[in-house]
């Protein structure tokens, strides 16, 4: 079906193994009427619904729409590819030549970043911290977990202590920063800001401290060792990555999920004996905008200035523009009505008349606004 047969063979063998693994769960048999059941595991530990008898799961598909040469679009030009293919990968793919110093970076940071990210990247105002101190030391806090002692320090997850790759920072500074005006930094400015990030996180590159005098360039950048590079699972690097990911999610214990044969699931005495009812403390988080309400009432009226002309068009024109009643500014047409005085004209308009004028023309305008529409009708402006 695809031009990647070698990959499909790899996938198929994994799927077969995974299907055996989940086979015990398939006899729960809650297949909706007319729908095809799932048959195999996907890479994330879920199931897939292959197309069988023209259906995938409960959905019909047009199998004739598959494997067609459709000939839409066009081939991008080399310049177009260069313009958009700007991602920066950990091996340096996409990382341009250039250089910038810590000193220049600090200057840029003070000018363009500090208002959100705080002094020395300390964070605040809802913007992330960029540093909390020495990256290598703070990486050790990642095993901190407040599940035993709520008062203990939690883990510190900032660029230096947590991120697996430095390329992410370079790429994101250039394309996503400064947040209100992104994609305005030059290559050298991006190197300078990255150098400053390394400085405040107290990095060394190739044994050399990234001090205030340090000048970062592409060659040095590619030698950065992130303290937490090995801190992530499953493995996603190298030619065997997808098999590693499949294997990881085939074991529910790896990611806190729970598998069960439905017929053997717990129905009585299912809680741990030590579990107690835990309530929200100190009112919890309750500052909601807009404030929580399930009342069905009318919203507070918005004080919008009346546009008499559009109110006329929406409510009156279907009669007054079609000869049933006098149109706006028609002095002759209005003269017989005006002879009774303006108050009478307003009253007839508001109450409606026997001859067919609906109250307020069928509008929901206030009396005061309706009178302005009447004025527009008579004066034509």
């Amino acid at each position, binding site marked *: 079906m695809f031009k990647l047969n070698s990959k499909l063979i790899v996938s198929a063998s994994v799927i077969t193994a995974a299907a055996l693994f989940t086979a015990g769960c398939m006899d729960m048999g809650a297949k909706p009427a007319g729908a095809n059941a799932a048959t195999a595991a996907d890479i994330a530990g*879920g199931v897939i619904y292959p197309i069988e008898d023209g259906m995938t799961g409960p959905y019909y598909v047009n199998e004739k729409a598959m494997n067609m040469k459709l000939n839409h679009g*066009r081939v991008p030009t080399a310049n177009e590819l260069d313009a958009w293919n700007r991602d920066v990968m950990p091996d340096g793919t996409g990382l341009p030549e250039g250089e910038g110093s810590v000193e220049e970076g600090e200057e840029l940071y003070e000018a363009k970043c500090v208002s959100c990210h705080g002094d020395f990247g300390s964070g605040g105002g809802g913007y992330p911290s960029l540093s909390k101190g020495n990256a290598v030391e703070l990486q050790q806090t990642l095993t901190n977990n407040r599940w035993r002692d709520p008062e203990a320090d939690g883990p510190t997850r900032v660029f230096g202590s947590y991120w697996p790759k430095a390329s992410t920072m370079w790429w994101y500074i250039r394309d*996503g920063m400064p947040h*209100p005006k*992104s994609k305005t930094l030059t290559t050298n400015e991006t190197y300078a800001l990255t150098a400053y990030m390394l400085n405040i996180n107290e990095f060394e590159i190739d044994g050399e401290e990234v001090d205030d005098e340090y000048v970062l360039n592409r060659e040095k950048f590619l030698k950065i060792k992130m303290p937490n590079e090995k801190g992530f699972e499953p493995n996603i690097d190298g030619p065997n990555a997808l098999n590693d990911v499949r294997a990881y999610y085939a074991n529910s214990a790896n990611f806190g999920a729970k598998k069960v044969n439905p017929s053997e699931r717990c129905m009585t005495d299912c809680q741990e004996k030590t*579990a107690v*009812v835990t309530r*929200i403390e100190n009112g919890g988080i309750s500052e909601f905008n807009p404030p929580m*309400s399930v009342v069905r009432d009318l919203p507070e009226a918005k004080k919008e200035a009346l546009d008499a002309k559009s109110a006329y068009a929406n409510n009156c024109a279907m009669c007054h523009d079609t000869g049933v009643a006098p149109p706006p500014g028609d002095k002759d047409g209005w003269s017989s009505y005006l002879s009774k005085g303006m108050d009478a004209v307003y009253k007839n308009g508001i109450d409606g008349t026997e001859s067919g004028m*609906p109250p307020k023309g069928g509008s929901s305008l206030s009396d005061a606004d309706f009178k302005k529409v009447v004025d527009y009708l008579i004066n034509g402006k």
Partner: protein
Amino acid sequence: MDNNKSQKDLEISDRRDFFKKTAALGVSALAGTSLMASEDDKAIMHHVPWGQTWGDPVTKNLYGMPSKYEHNVTRRYTKLLASGNYRASIAVTPIHESEGIITPNGLFFSRSHGGVAHIDPNQFRLMIHGLLEEEIVLTLDQLKRYPSVTRTHFIECPANGGQEWRGPQFNSLQFAKGFMASASWTGVYIKTILEDLGIKPEAQWMLAEGSDNSEMGRTVPIDKVLDDAMIVWGQNGEALRPEQGYPVRLLLPGWEGNLCVKWLKRLEFAAEPWYCKEETSKYTALKPTGKAIQHFYANEVNSTVVSPSPEKPWTDLEDGDVIEIEGLAWSGMGTITGVDISLDGGMNYVEASLKGLVLPKSWTRWSYMHTFKKGEKLILASRAMDDAGYIQPTIDEEVAIMGVESVYHRNAVETWEVTAEGKVNHVQLRTPGGVKNV
């Protein structure tokens, strides 16, 4: 006739009084009715204003709006999640007001990393390139010429419930579980386009990149691309809303909302992954071992009671009232196969009934009929299962593996206390300090 007249004379003083009152209220009694007794409902006994005047002309609201009386049914936000001056932030869906398995487009939760972009569809381009036999650039019209499919799927932020690893925080269903919504999506399977282009065997990963201010990007494994990944432009029968990535977003059914990149501009295929910001610094789940799960794709099986809720409690019920306990169940791993309900906080369960359409990777409604006893305290808990073989863990079971610092993918059984007064509170059943690895 005479008889009638004398009858009228007898009533006339009362009727005058009555009309005076009703005139003050701006309503009039229905023709043929006479006196209104105290047990009669004014909403029935009187003409209503909308029954005696013209309604709006069809020329009004050419794009329809909800009733003005529904103005409290909105997305909501909180300062706690105000990151980036509300440009790297979230506004959540009022699931306590949600009906069925479709969220109206205006109530679909809104999450962005650089604000909601407003894209000129005439300037939209989608570039698909990298380890392919042919590379391509498409306009919106060209993209829409591919054979389309329409699928109902929820999208859930993997931080749904992520504020409550260490204990309950939100006494609100909207905030406790509303980092998700569901829609009927229309688009094209990416595999349909790739069949056309041809993919090289060494391609293992796809980068999906947005054109928004944050250039939001994520790496997707080829397995998902060739399974059910879609490029979508339709949401509940109309164009995507700007908040959902107008004109085009990626949809990876069942997987983290963050992976479903909005304002999509580029798909690139490569042998190695990219390590984007939102798959390293965030959207990684730190375990007590100090290792963090990266590329944590599927939202696991989950459920919650949606009625009653803290927002819509049972305080007006009478003893003996038969009432439906209703809920939602969903799984990014497959199709919901069953939901159990507990009235005692997850100690003992009985089976609830599934309702309506039961679709893969979709919200699924469930129901259980309950007889309300005045003064009875309950702790409602629901526990869903899916056809991939998963069941929701207890909080203690999940915390034993994930700890309390992982932020993402919390799918333990959720509990809602019903007090003696019928009020509803969000609570958790858990062992203080957690349990040993189970």
